[in-house]
């Protein structure tokens, strides 16, 4: 299974993603500079975290017009697997590949810490190795992770089971106390209706080895691999 990791000016998690794919999944991976105008022979594209274009204007707002985004949108519309992590999620929102938008964290702080997220849907290609309602320990590191969508949009996300992860307590309780950034309905990650695009604020690539404090993140990468290999 071949992975591509897109690198924008200001991306800073691409090496971590690359490392996890090569060393932990033992799969081929390529870095893709954002100026590239074609995406050939990839099975999964990762939009990594960072501060593309310095977060100027709005997070992800300028990166979405990078040349690579046109073939990426085509790839996604044809059912290609896309995972956007943190800034990658913000880019997916700005490009319209996922619904909603990001606001500044409620308390206006940059938050960098381990959080717990509850797996709300295990019937996705990104979570098929998780057990029902499994709580994952995965770190966040962002200033704009306060996910927003209007009431109708939220209903639609819920109805279509697009909410994949919600911030929760270590035991899996979902409430305001365990919502780090003010995200509506504690949303930490969503998929598109078709289920081939995932956006999430927590960083699974930073929690794929026990030496780093958690290996829960690897479940997401391994789920993608399992799904692709069983096709």
């Amino acid at each position, binding site marked *: 299974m071949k992975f591509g990791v897109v690198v924008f000016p200001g991306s800073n998690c691409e090496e971590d993603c690359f490392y996890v794919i090569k060393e932990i999944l033992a799969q081929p991976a390529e870095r893709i500079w954002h100026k590239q105008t074609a995406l050939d022979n990839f099975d999964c594209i990762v939009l990594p975290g960072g501060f593309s274009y310095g977060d100027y204007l*709005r997070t992800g707002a300028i990166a979405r*017009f990078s040349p690579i985004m046109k073939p990426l949108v085509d790839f996604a519309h044809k059912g290609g697997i896309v995972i956007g992590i943190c800034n990658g999620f913000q880019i997916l929102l700005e490009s319209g590949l996922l619904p*909603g938008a990001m*606001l500044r964290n409620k308390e*206006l702080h940059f938050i960098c810490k381990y959080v717990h997220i509850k797996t709300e849907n295990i019937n996705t290609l990104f979570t098929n190795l998780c057990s029902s309602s499994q709580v994952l320990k995965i770190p966040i590191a962002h200033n704009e992770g306060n996910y927003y969508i209007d009431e109708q949009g939220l209903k639609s996300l819920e109805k279509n089971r697009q909410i994949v992860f919600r911030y929760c307590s270590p035991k899996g309780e979902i409430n305001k106390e365990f919502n780090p950034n003010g995200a509506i309905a504690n949303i930490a990650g969503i998929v598109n209706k078709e289920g081939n695009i995932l956006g999430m604020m927590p960083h699974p690539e930073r929690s794929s080895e026990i030496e780093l404090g958690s290996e829960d993140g690897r479940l997401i990468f391994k789920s993608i691999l399992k799904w692709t290999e069983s096709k």
Partner: protein
Amino acid sequence: MIEAEIYITLKKTVADPQGLTVKHALESLGYKEAEQVRMGKLITIRLNLKNKEEAEGKIDEMCRKLLANPIIEDYSFNIRCLPTDLQ
């Protein structure tokens, strides 16, 4: 030359944590009358155009495509022809 001043604000239905924090700061300075604070962005753009209507069309397009995110933001703008000595 035409200059546009574009104001981008969070929609009224969207919470504005920055504005709220500034409101608290004003209150702590004694400005109890500060009822509401909302933060936004001001962008100025100079255009090599002479026709105001054409400029309006272009600015509106720029706002929709890039400058504002319609999910969370509203925008408005003023347009004026710059006097020659300011160009």
